[in-house]
């Protein structure tokens, strides 16, 4: 069941358009896109099947979607949508929090399921490091919701259906923040979610140089490299777009090989959908073995080269 009130989808990136529409349609048949970005993003949104597309403006380089919080809150108080939905990016998390504070509600974050019951919004999201799922019923008039990456299917009506575009540019007071420098960080290929075979390195790998051993295994299996959070954030041996888990990527490959990974819940929820999981760890009591189909107890510096040899022998 859906509500009669419209639901808003706040869009600041081309990748989120279809998914936000898909998620918002779980709540209302009338979905209004609020677009923060260049004209081509507005055009993309307007031809995706929204009831209406509003263009809030194209932000200057020093302004992000978060700086539209005051303007969107004001609009929301006037129009009372069921909820304002957004993707879970850094900027949108900040926007969600600022909006929620202004609307005196609590943002519902990283939701993986959305519906309405008796005209109220009901969401489900994970908590306790992915160990549990909580369902909550919104009590405030307007929901502020960020959606979990990968949880909703994109709604696509094809590019044949251009809906109306409303120019609704709003005044944004730039924050008292000056941008001194902007550097870009190299990203890895970004094809991990599609990979059939993924080899994940954990802190047990010991040093950055030893990552090479694990890379050889990934190559021998024709797979891609991923890692646990400490390797990406803290040790900085790998990219931030390469770690798997509750706060990183969730993947569903045919094979996931965890090398020197202890198997904490926060990591394992990201690979739970893998068809087969293999673990290599020198601690027989490591929790990863209970979450794996096949395991080898041993020092990865010996086991991984042996495995690479064995794979070469059969190929």
């Amino acid at each position, binding site marked *: 069941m859906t509500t009669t009130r419209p639901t808003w989808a706040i869009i600041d990136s081309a990748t989120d358009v279809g998914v936000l529409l898909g998620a918002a349609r779980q709540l209302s048949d009338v979905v209004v896109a609020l677009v923060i970005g260049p004209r081509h993003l507005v055009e993309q949104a307007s031809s995706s099947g929204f009831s209406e597309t509003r263009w809030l403006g194209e932000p200057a380089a020093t302004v992000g979607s978060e700086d539209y919080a005051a303007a969107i809150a004001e609009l929301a108080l006037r129009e009372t949508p069921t909820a304002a939905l957004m993707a879970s990016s850094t900027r949108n998390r900040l926007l969600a929090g600022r909006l929620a504070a202004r609307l005196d509600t609590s943002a519902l974050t990283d939701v993986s399921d959305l519906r309405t019951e008796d005209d109220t919004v009901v969401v489900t999201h994970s908590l306790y490091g992915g160990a549990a799922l909580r369902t909550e019923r919104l009590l405030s008039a307007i929901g502020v919701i960020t959606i979990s990456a990968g949880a909703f299917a994109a709604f696509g009506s094809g590019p044949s259906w251009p809906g109306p575009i409303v120019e609704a540019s709003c005044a944004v007071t730039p924050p008292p923040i000056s941008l001194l420098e902007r550097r870009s960080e190299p990203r890895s290929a970004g094809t991990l979610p599609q990979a059939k075979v993924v080899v994940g390195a954990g802190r047990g790998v010991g040093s950055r140089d030893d990552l090479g051993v694990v890379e050889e295994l990934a190559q021998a299996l024709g797979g891609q490299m991923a890692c646990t959070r400490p390797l990406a954030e803290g040790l900085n041996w790998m990219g931030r777009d390469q770690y798997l888990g509750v706060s990183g990527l969730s993947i569903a490959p045919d094979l996931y090989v965890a090398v020197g990974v202890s198997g904490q819940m926060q990591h394992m929820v990201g690979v739970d959908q893998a068809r087969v999981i293999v673990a290599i760890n020198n601690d027989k009591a490591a929790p990863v*073995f209970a979450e794996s189909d096949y395991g080898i107890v041993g020092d990865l510096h010996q086991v991984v080269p*042996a495995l690479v040899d064995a794979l070469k022998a059969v190929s």
Partner: protein
Amino acid sequence: MTITVLCKWCPDTEDLEVGSDGSISFERAKWSISEYDRVALEVATSLATEVGEVVAVVAGTSIIDTSMTRKSVLSRGPDRLVMVVDDRLAEADARQSASALAGAIARIGDVDLVLCGAGSTDLFAQQVGIQVGERLGWPTLNEVASVHLTGSSCRVERRVVDEIDTLEVALPVALAVTADAALPRVPGMREILAAGKKPTVVWSLDDLGPPAAVDRASQVVSTVARSHSTRLQVLFEGSPTEAAAQLVGALRHESLV
């Protein structure tokens, strides 16, 4: 200059017990400072060696009001501790926590900088620090990887998707720092003993500046253990070469190699 660090006292998720019906319990869990708030404590303490005072703020039900909580927080560097203890904070959502913490900051007065971790170990909504900043009407940033004070402003590095911005923000400001913004210390005996002598005040929700929210913005319908796939759990032991050969055999059987 006064720096406030927001710390959450929460149950360790590893200690979560799951019943046969999928119910969950933290009855026997250890509680500790949320992992990423320890990073914020370390950042605050390193800044404070240059200037002023660090006040830690913890809010929660009476479960937090123990000498263990006090010592655990104060041994990590802050000069004093403010506890907002109120059983109306049971299962608090981000709105309740943020409104209690913003109220405490208003009452502390003359705070220049609010720091917190990226998100709490239990809920990890990554919302409270942001909502505190917005409730105070201050500039607020998340994903802050480093902080330097420069007189009446601070210089921060913020990570947004694949860019790192260096920003200058006038104080007061609220910042949620990333997990790698500092390496949290492990307090030694001397720090734990010294912590016992540092001052703590305890307030209730009624003692704060603006009245705090006492209800959740949403009603919890259910909290259940997440079901996950059962795995074969086959272990190959023996020499690395033998184990590797057995594993490759299994992978061939699964048509994976």
